[in-house]
């Protein structure tokens, strides 16, 4: 977004590749138990370049950084630094060899001064006492080196903002003779202005011959300051590209292994004659302040998005539809039959599934294995006379996993062992095991990384193609605009307006959500 302010450093990316290899990572593997965190990592760092490492969460970036920084050992593979084998036994070793990492979490001592923090690893001594003058002189030098001339070295670190703390970490890292400086998501907590300041400093450091490894989730930043980018997926290096010859969507495609953002619905609109599956008439939850309640209808195979601000009553509405919370008034009918909800069991029997907002608190039993989580809503189907049939249960979980491309090592692993995206797939598998006709989804991709998000969209779209109707509540407008056939905007426990797919725009949705547009249906008289 602010790439234009940062293009000054845009590199020419034309260095001859092999000539100046500083650090080479070749076929590095590392497993934790059965999980292969790194399964063949390759990349070459050229002297003086800035090199981005990108990939989804769990793609292997952080494991590689830990190996480079000496915090973890590799299982197999070779790493060479300046032609010599590089095998640091601990972070101290790595530093001595010139490889420094600035982590996301700072290791600063808040009560000590900037100078003390910068020198903490090797405090200058004279006659066995701390040489304060020398310490401050060194710190001044370190700060000047990264252009922080205005900052007093006696300031306690606790008084500094996050951006300055980050820079002090960098100053500390650069104090020793660094060849490689690894920045692990350095901009995660910075404002745009702080980020561009950081980038200027990175460019200065680079100009002084330090090689930069830049880990970030923000591709615009990668494209703003890096020369080359290496993409990781599932513990492997996918490819390394010159930034000058690449573009962000190509990188994302490498990251997720498919092109992203396209809709895979086989029909663009829901037909007018499609039967209505769910009809909701003036439904009020206990927190709904007005008489009208919420009314809506969902057709077969239709994905209806519900947008709105936090507190608009979206979650409460979904919970009421599922019988999770009592309904104060109003009527619900499914396939034209009135539905009386005494509890979730009634909704489930009627063919409704509910993917809750918080999978850890409401969706999964984290300590239980994948089979048990998958069968939790269909125990009747995997038991007879109250006795569990473990084979049937495993089959149910295995089939569900196959259908959703679930990544796991064994069905007997606890749900807690999976990544967020795969946990969410288990929640989906639990409901799909019942072949629901209506799915209620509350923030279906919260805390899920970009690749799994794309997969979940594909799953939901193909379910809709098979005739499953869906009500999707999401705070991410791009998500709703990708998934939904129609978006209803809720505010103050009422539907403020409806947008057809051709009218989708963030501005229109937000205007309705903030109540800036009049409701398009006249409100009925209220008490």
């Amino acid at each position, binding site marked *: 977004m602010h790439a234009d302010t940062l293009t000054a450093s845009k590199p020419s990316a034309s260095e001859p590749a092999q000539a100046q290899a500083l650090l080479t990572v070749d076929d590095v593997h590392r497993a934790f138990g059965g999980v292969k965190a790194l399964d063949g990592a390759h990349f070459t760092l050229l002297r003086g370049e800035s090199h981005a490492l990108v990939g989804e969460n769990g793609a292997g970036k952080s494991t590689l950084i830990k190996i480079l920084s000496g915090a973890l050992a590799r299982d197999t593979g070779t790493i060479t630094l300046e032609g010599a084998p590089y095998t640091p036994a601990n972070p101290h070793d790595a530093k001595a060899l010139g490889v420094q990492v600035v982590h996301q979490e700072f290791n600063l001592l808040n009560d000590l001064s900037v100078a003390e923090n910068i020198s903490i690893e090797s405090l200058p001594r004279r006659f066995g006492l701390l040489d304060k003058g020398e310490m401050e002189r060194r710190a001044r030098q370190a700060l000047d080196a990264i252009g922080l001339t205005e900052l007093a070295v006696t300031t306690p670190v606790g008084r500094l903002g996050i951006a300055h703390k980050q820079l002090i970490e960098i100053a500390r890292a650069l104090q020793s003779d660094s060849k490689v400086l690894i920045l692990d998501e350095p901009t995660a907590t910075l404002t745009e202005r702080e980020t561009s300041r950081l980038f200027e400093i990175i460019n200065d450091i680079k100009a002084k011959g330090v090689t930069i490894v830049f880990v970030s989730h923000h591709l615009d930043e990668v494209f703003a300051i890096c020369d080359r980018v290496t993409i990781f997926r599932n513990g492997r290096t996918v490819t390394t590209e010159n930034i000058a010859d690449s573009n962000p969507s190509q990188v994302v495609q490498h990251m997720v292994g498919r092109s992203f953002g396209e809709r895979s619905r086989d029909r663009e609109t829901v037909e007018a004659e499609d039967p209505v599956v769910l009809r909701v008439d003036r439904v009020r939850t206990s927190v709904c302040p007005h008489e009208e309640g919420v009314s809506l209808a969902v057709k077969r195979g239709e994905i209806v998005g519900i947008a709105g601000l936090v507190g608009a009553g979206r979650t409460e509405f979904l919970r009421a539809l599922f019988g999770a919370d009592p309904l104060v008034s109003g009527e619900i009918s499914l396939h034209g039959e009135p539905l009386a909800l005494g509890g979730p069991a009634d909704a489930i029997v009627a063919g409704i599934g509910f993917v809750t907002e918080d999978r850890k608190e409401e969706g999964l*039993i984290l300590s239980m294995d994948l089979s048990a989580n998958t069968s939790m809503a269909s125990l009747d189907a995997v038991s007879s006379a109250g006795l569990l049939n473990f084979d049937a249960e495993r089959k149910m979980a295995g089939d569900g996993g196959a259908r959703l491309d679930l990544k796991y090592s064994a069905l007997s692993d606890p749900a807690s062992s999976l990544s967020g995206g795969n946990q969410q797939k288990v929640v989906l598998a639990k409901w799909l095991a019942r072949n629901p006709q209506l799915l209620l989804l509350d923030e279906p991709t919260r805390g899920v990384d970009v690749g799994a998000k794309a997969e979940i969209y594909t799953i939901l779209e193909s379910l809709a193609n098979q005739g499953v109707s869906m009500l999707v509540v999401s705070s991410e407008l791009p998500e709703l605009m990708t998934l939904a056939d129609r978006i209803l905007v809720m505010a103050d426990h009422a539907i403020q307006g409806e947008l057809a797919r051709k009218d989708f725009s963030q501005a229109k949705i937000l205007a309705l959500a903030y109540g800036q547009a009049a409701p398009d249906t006249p409100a009925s008289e209220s008490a």
Partner: protein
Amino acid sequence: MMSDTQTVGSIPTPQRGLSVRGIINSAGIGLALLLLIVFFSFASEHFLTPNNITNILTQITINLILAVGMTFVILIGGIDLSVGSVMAFAAVVAGKAITLPGLGPAELILLATTAGVLAGLACGMLNGFLSAYWSLPSFIITLGMLNIARGAALQVSDAQTIYSFPRAFENFGSLLISGVPVVFLVALVLVLLAWFVLTRTVFGRIIYGIGSNEEAVRLAGHNVFAYKVAAFSICGLTAGIAAIIYMARLNISSPIAGIGFELNAIAAVIIGGTSLSGGRGSVIGTLLGAFIIGVLANGLILIGLSDFMRQMITGVVIVVAVILDHYRAKLAGNG
């Protein structure tokens, strides 16, 4: 694409019911028990004798029966402080029934057993209903029941010990099958039954589920209230069974029986590796936990330690067990 990821089906999964982690946990407790037995065998020549083994088995029976029921309650994240009192109440009710005039011994025994077990069941049901219906902490509800049942036992018995039971009933309490007390076999059958229910049935699955994540179980369409009442009812039921065994063994029925028994039952469950916060544990662990408490009690006295020292050591074991549980919980959390 995604060809490099592990998917589905082809991976053989280890056997269910007893998870790998569950086996390791139980194995650790079993090892501790084994070490205790080895230690006491060397420390006292009287320890590993047929007579003393019979003794130990007899001594742990009541606690084991109470602990089996307690396991269900702790697995759903509850606690039952009332089992000692409920046992006394059930014993008094059964004692009243078994001393009724004008009936034959077989009828008396049947009547008394039924009455005692039902009395326990009723108390447990009430515990479960009160705590589940209003979502009140079972700690408080069962603390109330601890007093109510004790008072009721004293009231019904007029604070008198009841005795002179049918001969057959008294014999049952001291009957041995090749050195093994029949009452212990009853407890063992209950353990196996509970193990089967907890690991092989839908009921057991949901008991574990409620202890781990009650809301997820509820939203999966299960009637959490009913399962909670059932767990407490089972605990009351085992208190009723324990009452009958207690009467058969001691040939009396006293309203002041079972004071503090709830703490030993809870200790057996916790030492056995069941998490106090619910959701994790096994009744096999409880069996081993009851053995550890029983072996400690017996062995420490045999090697000449005072009863006070025995109490202190049992206390230390409980604390150590809870600390171990803390680390297990961390391990499980990290997955």
